[in-house]
Every structure is written in structure tokens, then in C-alpha cells.
């Protein structure tokens, strides 16, 4: 095999000797997102041992397998629950959760909204490909109306979640959306989310050309990337459109970036104040 130089930043952070080539299909966006995560971490110059990457089950959730951080590959839908445990046990770790649309908003929906509500310092990178990729293409809570999946062979009639609106409603402190096509933007948003103190969500719209693309005749992988470029517009460009033109378009950008009391810090304060008061009681006794 050809030699891979260490100075290439991707290779510094990948388990490339053991785990590559990865399992994702040709043209799947998950690899592009992994690249963006790695470049964001490299820019911040964080050590590999300072980061813990946690995921559930799904194609997107296989990401921790390939990176050389501390990694946890857990149960379907429970990534945020495990990550909460890691963060509370070792608050100095930077905890990244990688999850899919099914993982985070179907089976793991409650963990997702309550982590946002509590404002616990996690960075959730949600790869939204509109479908359950790993199990063969069942519909997910984000599948658009009319789309065909194995469980909606005549077209989906369920209205879809807007994940960013859901997170905003639940009180998340940092909410952003971008796409795998906008790889540099994804890198910047991930970097901002990583340094943000509190719950941060970066939703990345991804292409699943092999299952979602084929079932819905979206063309090959480059065609799906092109349609992301055309239909997912920056907030500025989106606001300029008339109501009719907004049909079928989605906006991307940072929707909220605020600082709020963070859960692990509040918890720590509570523990310290209680310990201090118990200490006083003990002192009285002696």
C-alpha cells in the first residue's frame, strides 16, 4: 500500500491503519462531515485525548470508529444519554455527539430535547439524510412529505420535523444548520459549536445517494450535492425570496448563539455549596 504521510492533518486523527477504507457507500456525505470535524479539531489544536466522541447506531453513528479520540459507540438513540454521563463524570473533556436523524429525533428524541433544555455542554453533530440508512431505508421523522421509503412505498404523509426549530424550541444555546456540500462552512460551524459553552447543535444535511437517492430518483451523488447547493440557501439569500420562491427551499446558517448557565457548572456549584454547609455542620459538632 502507498505510504500516507503523517503531516496530512486528516491522517493524524484517523485510525487509518486499522479501519480504512470505511463502510460508507460511494458518494455518501458522512465522510465529508468526518473531514470537516477533523479539520475543525486540528484548527483548535486540541489533543486527541481531550476529546470524547460518542454515538449511537446508524451509518452516521459509525463515525467514532474511524477517529483516534476517546470514543464510545453505544445504543441506538442513547448517544446523548451516554455523553451526559461522560460530561458529568469528567467535565474537562470536550464531548462530541455524532448522531443521525433517526437516532436523535425518533428513538432518541427525548434525550435530545432534554439535553438542549438543560443546556449541558455537548456538541451535537446531527447528520440529517432524511432516512434510516443503515437498516435499509425506512422513513424517519425528517423525511419530507411525498418521499418514498421502504415503509412509505406510496409516498410519505407524515409532516417532517425541522430539527433546528425543535432545538430552538427546546432552548438550545447554539443552533446552526449547513450541508455536506458547504464543507468549509460546516468546518467553521463545527469549530464555533465546539468552543461554545453549553448545548450546541450543528445539523448537517447529508446525501444518502445509495438508499434515499435511488428510492426518490435524486440522481447520482454529484447531482445530489448540486441540489443541496441550489436548494439550501444562506439566511440572507433565503430572506430575499418571495413566499412562492421559498417553496422547497431550506435556510442554513447560525440561528442562535447565546450564553446561558451551563448544567455541569451549576451542578458543581450545588455540590460545592452543599459540601460547604455540611462541613459547617460537622465543625459545629466537633
Amino acid at each position: 500500500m502507498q505510504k500516507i504521510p503523517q503531516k496530512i492533518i486528516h491522517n493524524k486523527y484517523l485510525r487509518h491503519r486499522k479501519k480504512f477504507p470505511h463502510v460508507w457507500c460511494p458518494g455518501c456525505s458522512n465522510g465529508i462531515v468526518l473531514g470537516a470535524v477533523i479539520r475543525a479539531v486540528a484548527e483548535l489544536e486540541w489533543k486527541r485525548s481531550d476529546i470524547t466522541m460518542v454515538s449511537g447506531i446508524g451509518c452516521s453513528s459509525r463515525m467514532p470508529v474511524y477517529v483516534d479520540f476517546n470514543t464510545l459507540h453505544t445504543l441506538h438513540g442513547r448517544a446523548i444519554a451516554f455523553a451526559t454521563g461522560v460530561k458529568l463524570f469528567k467535565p474537562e473533556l470536550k464531548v462530541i455527539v455524532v448522531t443521525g436523524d433517526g437516532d436523535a429525533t425518533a428513538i432518541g428524541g427525548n434525550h435530545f430535547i432534554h439535553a438542549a433544555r438543560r443546556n449541558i455542554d455537548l456538541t451535537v453533530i446531527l447528520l440529517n439524510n432524511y432516512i434510516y440508512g443503515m437498516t435499509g431505508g425506512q422513513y424517519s421523522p425528517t423525511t419530507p412529505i411525498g418521499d418514498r421509503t421502504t415503509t412509505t412505498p406510496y409516498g410519505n404523509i407524515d409532516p417532517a420535523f425541522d430539527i433546528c426549530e425543535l432545538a430552538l424550541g427546546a432552548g438550545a444555546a447554539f443552533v446552526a444548520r449547513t450541508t455536506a456540500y458547504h464543507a468549509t462552512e460546516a468546518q467553521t460551524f463545527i469549530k464555533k459549536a465546539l468552543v461554545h459553552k453549553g448545548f450546541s447543535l450543528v445539523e448537517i444535511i447529508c446525501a444518502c445517494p445509495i438508499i434515499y437517492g435511488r428510492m426518490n430518483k435524486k440522481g447520482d451523488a454529484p447531482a445530489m450535492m448540486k441540489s443541496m447547493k441550489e436548494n439550501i440557501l444562506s439566511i440572507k439569500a433565503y430572506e430575499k425570496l418571495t413566499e412562492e420562491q421559498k417553496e422547497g427551499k431550506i435556510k442554513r446558517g447560525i440561528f442562535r448563539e447565546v450564553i446561558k448557565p451551563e448544567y455541569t457548572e451549576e451542578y458543581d456549584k450545588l455540590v460545592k455549596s452543599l459540601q460547604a454547609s455540611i462541613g459547617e455542620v460537622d465543625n459545629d459538632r466537633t
Partner: protein
Amino acid sequence: MRYWEVPFGKEKPKTPIGEIHILKERCKGCGFCVEYCPKDVLEMSDEFNSKGYHPPKIVNEENCVNCGLCEMICPEFSIWCTLKEEVALEN
């Protein structure tokens, strides 16, 4: 005299020239690198790798400007670019 040619004594801008490296065995032939290279340096080849995919091949190596777009968009980490040299812009 054309003073503006050397503003503030700054050197003339240079164009980087890149060298491309392709890990053919890892490629899955998605075609993104060929699609997004702004300088049309790459093309899909007819050759197969051991998994049966067509990796890209280099057709205009001298045009590569080390922009790194192919490296950024490749989902397989199978292509990257390094700086070979920098040449002064013509004229």
C-alpha cells in the same frame, strides 16, 4: 515609472503549484474530486482498483494550484495535495 508595481516594497504575488497524491485502493469512484476541481486537473480513469471502483487519474498536473478542494470534498480521504513550488505570476 510604474511605482505601483511594487507597492510598499512587497514581493510580486506567487502562484502555488501543487502535487496530487491519490490512494487508489481507498477510492470509491464517487467523482466529487473530478467534479469540483476548479482547474480540471483530474479525470475518472478506466482502470479498476481491487474493490472494482474507478479511481481518478491526473491529466493536467501542471494546472494544479494546491487549492485543496479535492482533499476537502473527498469522502474517503484518498486524495490530497501538497505544495510543490511557488512560481512568480507571469507579467
